[in-house]
């Protein structure tokens, strides 16, 4: 298939997953601000922004509303939900002849209904709506797309973004040290609390919760299963297996991080959770870059200067 189309599908997957992940992280964090009256709002908000890969421009103290404006509805902010939704739609429009009508409608509708501001008593509802819309888009693709190359690129984008988003979610745990979101809240936010309780049958401990989100091969939102999913897609896209090791740079990176996670004692990771999560984010973006270099080559647009005669 055309590289341009494949790239669009890859990014539709990433953007849908990103809007979902961002909504979950914001939801947890903003609830926490409300629940904990001793927390320093400004520090917490700056920490949240930095976890999402951006920084506040002004020195003014930041509040909840600023965070919502920046990360939820600001269309120009590259980490915001509104931007992700618009970018997913834009990518779908460029691949209109490949993307199914239902998916197109779902993305188009979400984009059209995206509010410009969210009242502070409506934030939870808003985040829930974003999650619902992402689930709808993903469900539409899941239920009625042939498992061909197009689907693999979509799934690949999703898996990589999901690993990245879970890493960011975990990183919020250690942001404000003592007062970071509790493991219960984090597990709830990614819809894994019940699954976690069933797996561990006990009082949540930070170790088992981190283990669950990082290393549980059966829970689809854990980092390890996202990485495995991404590797599967890459294998499907190029099933040739040579005799010597792995030659695909993207698969190499994913394999390395997977081994690192699998074979490192969980206690080691918890010592510097933030550091490890940052490393993981670095790996996901390097992987994304490797995929781009291999499957979506773009020649630099040449500019021709006419002769002046």
């Amino acid at each position: 298939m055309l590289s341009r189309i494949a790239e669009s599908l890859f990014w539709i997957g990433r953007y849908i997953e990103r809007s979902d992940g961002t909504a979950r992280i914001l939801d947890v964090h903003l609830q926490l601000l409300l629940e904990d009256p001793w927390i320093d709002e400004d520090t917490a908000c700056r920490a949240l922004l930095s976890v999402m890969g951006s920084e506040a421009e002004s020195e003014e103290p930041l509040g909840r509303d600023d965070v919502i404006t920046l990360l939820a509805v600001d269309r120009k902010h590259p980490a915001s939900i509104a931007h992700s939704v618009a970018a997913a739609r834009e990518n779908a429009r460029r691949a209109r002849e490949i993307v199914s009508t239902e998916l197109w409608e779902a993305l188009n509708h979400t984009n059209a209904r995206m509010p410009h501001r969210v009242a502070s008593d409506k934030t939870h509802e808003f985040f829930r709506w974003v999650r619902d819309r992402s689930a709808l888009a993903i469900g539409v693709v899941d239920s009625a797309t042939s498992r061909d190359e197009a689907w693999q690129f979509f799934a690949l984008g999703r898996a990589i973004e999901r690993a990245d988003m879970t890493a960011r979610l975990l990183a919020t745990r250690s942001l404000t040290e003592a007062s970071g979101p509790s493991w219960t809240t984090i597990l709830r936010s990614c819809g894994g609390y019940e699954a976690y309780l069933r797996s561990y049958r006990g009082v949540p401990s930070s170790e088992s919760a981190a283990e669950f989100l990082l290393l549980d091969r059966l829970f689809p939102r854990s980092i390890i299963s996202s990485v495995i999913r991404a590797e599967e897609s890459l294998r499907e896209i190029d099933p040739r297996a040579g005799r010597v090791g792995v030659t695909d740079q993207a698969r190499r990176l994913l394999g390395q991080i997977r081994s690192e996670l699998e074979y490192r004692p969980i206690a080691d990771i918890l010592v510097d959770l933030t550091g490890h999560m940052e490393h993981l984010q670095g790996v996901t973006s390097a992987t994304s870059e490797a995929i781009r270099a291999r499957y979506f080559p773009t020649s630099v647009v040449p500019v021709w200067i006419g002769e002046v005669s």
Partner: protein
Amino acid sequence: MATLFDGYATAGTNRAGRRRRAGRPWDEMFPDGTTDVREPYRELYPALARMSQDELRGRTDALASSYLAQGVTFDFAGEERPFPLDAVPRVISASDWARAEAGVSQRVRALEAFLADVYGPQRAVADGVIPAALISSSTHYHRQAAGIVSANGVRIHVAGIDLIRDEQGDWRVLEDNVRVPSGVSYVISNRRVMAQTLPELFTSMRVRPVGEYPNRLLQALRRSAPEGIEDPTVVVLTPGVHNSAYYEHTLLARLMGVELVEGRDLFCSGGRVWMHTTAGPTRVDVIYRRVDDEFLDPQQFRPDSVLGAPGLMLAARLGHVTIANAVGNGVADDKLVYTYVPDLIRYYLGEEPVLPNVDTWRLEEPDALAEVLDRLDELVVKPVDGSGGKGLVIGPDASKAELDELRTRLLADPRGWIAQPVVQLSTIPTLVEDGLRPRHADLRPFAVNDGDEVWVLPGGLTRVALPEGRLVVNSSQGGGSKDTWVLESRPLPGFDTGGLPVLAEAVAPGHRSAGALVADQASPNTQPATGLHGVQGTPIVPAAASLPGETRTASPVTSSPQDEDAPIRQQQQQQQQQQSVGRVGSEANVSRPGPEVNADGSRYAPGGRYSTDPEEGASC
């Protein structure tokens, strides 16, 4: 029977005596002043007359909403409108059509010979049939195209020859479009939606199907592939989503089952053309391009074009890729060349022209210029390089100031204009606010040349001017369209449907096959794109070094690469209004200031190449 056609005849009579000196227009349904019905409409008329006006209006709304849902739309002043389709079809009898078909085919063969000659030995010039200056002064004559010949010699893979019926009901050729004629997608989708919405009209007639067009086109494209390639890769090259004919490009690519590519998907290397795919570069053998000549190859034409691929012309010259239609065909569209076409038919083919031209004055000839200047208020004056009504002045409708201005322009550039008498285009009953009223219409049949034979799609696109008395039929100027039915000559079932024989056999009696044949043609999965966003480049923050403590910033979010040259791309895409049926949206694309674009960090665009507001354009 009374209600639907009430006032039709009187409306015709009232109009007849009005300002124009020319005779009254030929009405395709009713012979002059009677309520009698012409032969082709004999079966359609009772079916229509059974309906009340409200019912017909309801069906028309259904047609429109079906188009809106499928995305068969065009932009009108920033608002998305369904492509206008009138519920009353135009019916052409088998014998009438045979003449038009023969004429169109003959014309394409002659133009094909003419183009081969112009970009080759130029015998016609040497023999004095056509002046050399005329060719070299044509806007669309490209020296770069000289010597480029496709493997089977075809230059006009697709042609759209605009026909009209004059006051006597005879076909005449109005203009030739052999560059990038568009509108065929509307023929296919009009038939499909008519069969769904007004099935009872089809019941008693044998209408020749139009669904085989994509097969014919694909065959013609494959046969023009460079020699020695067994299974050629065919692609459709589109300017992009902002082009008003984008719907047509997607439809054709889908129905032919080939890739729809943009210029940036292609690159040239080693004298061949390749497209970027996930499996690496794939060679492209035939490009059905819907991009204008000037934008195809920045090495040869406009250096600022972002829609083509540098090196295309070289690859074509080396014979490694076929560009369809060939570059430089525009010289045959020149309206001054048009006046020579009857001579060209006699010269190249040794035949008499089947279809006459509309009488035309060549303003380069001093006598003609003098006569035209004298009678400017009763003639139609057209620029030679425009198509479909662009820059056209209708003398009787023009104000004195306009005529004075026109006079100076004609004197300054007689080569740039031609003049014709006002031809009363034939009229067809069309549903307007007052009910069914006569409205002027023309016809664009489409011809496909596969090298052995010129095949003419039965029917073509009928365009109607909706305002009363108006003679310009473009959509951007309030034009509509009609489904065009060519009746089958042989009255027995089991007629030859050309392509798709299996389907035709399965549903033998003609009228039913019409619906079945088109039912699966255009799948309705094109949705209206409501509103656009300026494509935004997003800043990529360089990976921050790990800072101590709480303020360290995690990896920045990455973004999908966006079109760093979005504004220029969009602008050029919209410029490709080439020979489109309606130039839909060309005037309607009102640019609005879009959101500020934060472009300075875009991955491939160093240093904020466009910090200005790109325009948020209207969609296709």
